[in-house]
């Protein structure tokens, strides 16, 4: 915060920050008290009066472009999902290799993809996306899969493994079980999903999740966030009605992700959107280091927009220079307007 900006924004604040304050209002108790002043006082660009145009033409406000209401059943919290990693039950094999055991159970559930809109999903462990599995390069991974659903399912892990561990041919019948076992390689941002036909339906109904294999030497300490770009064809016409990161449309617009100024943020970005060829991630007011598939520790590009095909992944690393609310969204405007849009709320850090 610049001291000289305080005096001038006294006058501009009501007009300029109305939009921001409305959004912040949706924060509820999350960090508003702490961060409210930080961005209400930031100095605006000269001549910026976005909100004022709305009074005459109705254009220009983001407040209207969103869902109405809050989730009716709080079964899945996308904010919680961001930082929730399942590192498995850890033990040591006689060879000295680390063994990580996970359990995944496929079942039929209802997912609330926007307030009041319920989607008949197929899910691993009762959530879409499934739990984020995490291990270290070279670990022995063992996944106990149980199919509690009424259709046959599998788990297909992206990675290097034996043919019968690929989840492509050994279809698990309803009520059946299968154990997948392999060494975690290569390090990077992988994913897992059902590989039963018809593929489109099995994947788009929700059978997917993130699988992170950390490099042995690790990555720099950061605020780590998992973002799965997904969509839901709620009326089954072959087109998505709702888009999101982590299932709930507009969730991070209504509940911004609070990060700190100067803090390293790492996003594990996975695209599992069905029906549309590509999805993308655009960050406002910043650029990020892009690590394609996360398989190299040297970054591939410094950009603010990346396009990912279906099943493609990328690790993004960035640090915010300025405090305040910043958008992130698909740069396909259609996807953004149908729910794939969110906010980072960068809290001012005294250390900067």
């Amino acid at each position, binding site marked *: 915060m610049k001291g000289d900006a305080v005096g001038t924004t006294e006058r501009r604040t009501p007009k300029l920050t109305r939009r921001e304050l409305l959004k912040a209002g949706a924060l509820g108790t999350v960090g508003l008290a702490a961060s409210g002043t930080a961005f209400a006082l930031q100095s605006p660009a000269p001549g910026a009066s976005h909100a004022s145009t709305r009074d005459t033409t109705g254009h220009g406000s983001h407040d209207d472009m969103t869902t109405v209401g809050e989730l009716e059943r709080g079964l899945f919290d996308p904010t919680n999902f961001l930082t929730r990693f399942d590192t498995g039950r850890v033990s040591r094999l006689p060879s000295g290799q680390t063994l990580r055991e996970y359990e995944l159970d496929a079942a039929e559930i209802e997912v609330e993809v926007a307030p009041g809109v319920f989607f008949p999903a197929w899910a691993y462990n009762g959530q879409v996306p499934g739990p984020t599995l995490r291990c270290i390069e070279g670990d022995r991974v063992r996944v106990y899969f149980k199919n509690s659903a009424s259709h046959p399912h599998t788990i297909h892990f992206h990675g290097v493994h034996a043919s019968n561990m690929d989840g492509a041919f050994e279809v698990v019948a309803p009520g059946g079980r299968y154990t997948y076992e392999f060494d975690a390689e290569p390090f990077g941002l992988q994913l897992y999903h059902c590989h039963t036909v018809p593929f489109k339906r099995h994947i788009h109904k929700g059978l997917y999740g993130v699988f992170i294999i950390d490099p042995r030497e690790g990555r720099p300490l950061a605020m780590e966030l998992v973002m799965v770009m997904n969509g839901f064809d*709620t009326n089954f016409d072959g087109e998505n*009605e709702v888009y999101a990161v982590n299932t709930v449309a507009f969730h991070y617009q209504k509940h911004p992700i609070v990060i700190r100024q100067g803090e390293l943020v790492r996003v594990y970005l996975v695209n599992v959107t069905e029906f549309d060829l590509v999805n993308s991630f655009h960050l406002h007011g910043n650029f990020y280091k892009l690590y394609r598939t996360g398989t190299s520790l040297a970054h591939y590009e410094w950009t603010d927009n990346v396009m990912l095909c279906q099943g493609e992944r990328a690790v993004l690393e960035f640090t915010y220079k300025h405090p305040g609310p910043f958008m992130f969204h698909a740069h396909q405007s259609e996807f953004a307007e*149908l729910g794939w849009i969110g906010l980072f709320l960068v809290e001012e850090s005294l250390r900067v």
Partner: protein
Amino acid sequence: MPTWLKATAPLFLLAVLVFAFLRVGPLGVFRAAFPPVEELTVERITLPRPAEMRVHVINGGPEPVTIAQVLVDDAVWGHVVDGGKTLERLASRVISIPYPWVQGEPHVVKLISSTGLTFEGTVAIATQTPSPDARYVITFALLGLYAGVIPVFLGLLWFPFLRTVRREWLDFFLCLTIGLLLFLGAEALAEAFETAARVPRAFQGLGVILLGALATFLALGAFGRQRARAGGGHQALYVATLIALGIGLHNLGEGLAIGTSYATGEIALGTFLVVGFLLHNTTEGLGILAPLAKERPTLGQLAWLGTLAGVPTIVGAWIGGFTSSAVWTTLFLAVGAGAIAQVVVELWRLFAKRAEAGGLTSPRNVAGLLTGLVIMYATGLLVPA
């Protein structure tokens, strides 16, 4: 067993059964796991002011429907529903959406129900919806005046000419009138079927058409028979009145359609359209006159006939412009078709009474009827709506 019991026993048992079903709930085979069949119909979308849309919806399906979210042009948009978000069967709501619609461009509104089903409504060409103020009352009155009243009265000006026509050529004009009416009746029926497709399923568009058309046809027929028995006066004037009424009801439906199209921006009241309606509907006046050619109607009677046939267009334009409902439009069109069918029957009767007229074996009569159809077809080419 008394008669009243015999008459009501099945109804009584039916009531018991219905009550039991409603109390106990569905049984066996009816208790299925499939999701409820939802059906929402967007009846009308109005644009009362910049950056506001109003979507009028009705639940015409068998199950309650909950409106969960609203999309405009594939963007999720904020909205306010004037009442609960769950619509019981046949309940209706108005959804206000603060969407910055664009003048002259189309828009699509999509409602997402709680089960994820979507229901669409479209704005063909966005333009601010007329509100019932003086300016638009006059606009719609003019619309009706051009499309209905002026043409009919112009047609009535053929009266002096018709009086000079010889008897056998008068049959030609009567047949021409029958041709015109057949065309109008078929047109009204076709339009009724068209709008019936937009009627919420619960209101059964086909039922509305059957009831409206048949009830009008039969009621007018019965009324004519009563009147003839009572020895009620002037047969030719009666038939002329009936023609005027039939045409008037047809024009009411036409006015409704024009008013709705104009209000929703589907048509512009251009010169071409006005000229088209003038030519198309002028022959309606001629039709009213045909049975009166050998009579001596007063000017007042002629004016009354013209009013009866023409003015409903204005009334229709008002109703269609300011409210519009597929159910009512369908009903009016069906009533018009039924009335016209009865008029054709009456005309035919008037005609067939005279053996020398030769019926439809006379080349002249056939030519007259076909001319009527051809005139309507040819002038119809000028009406794009």
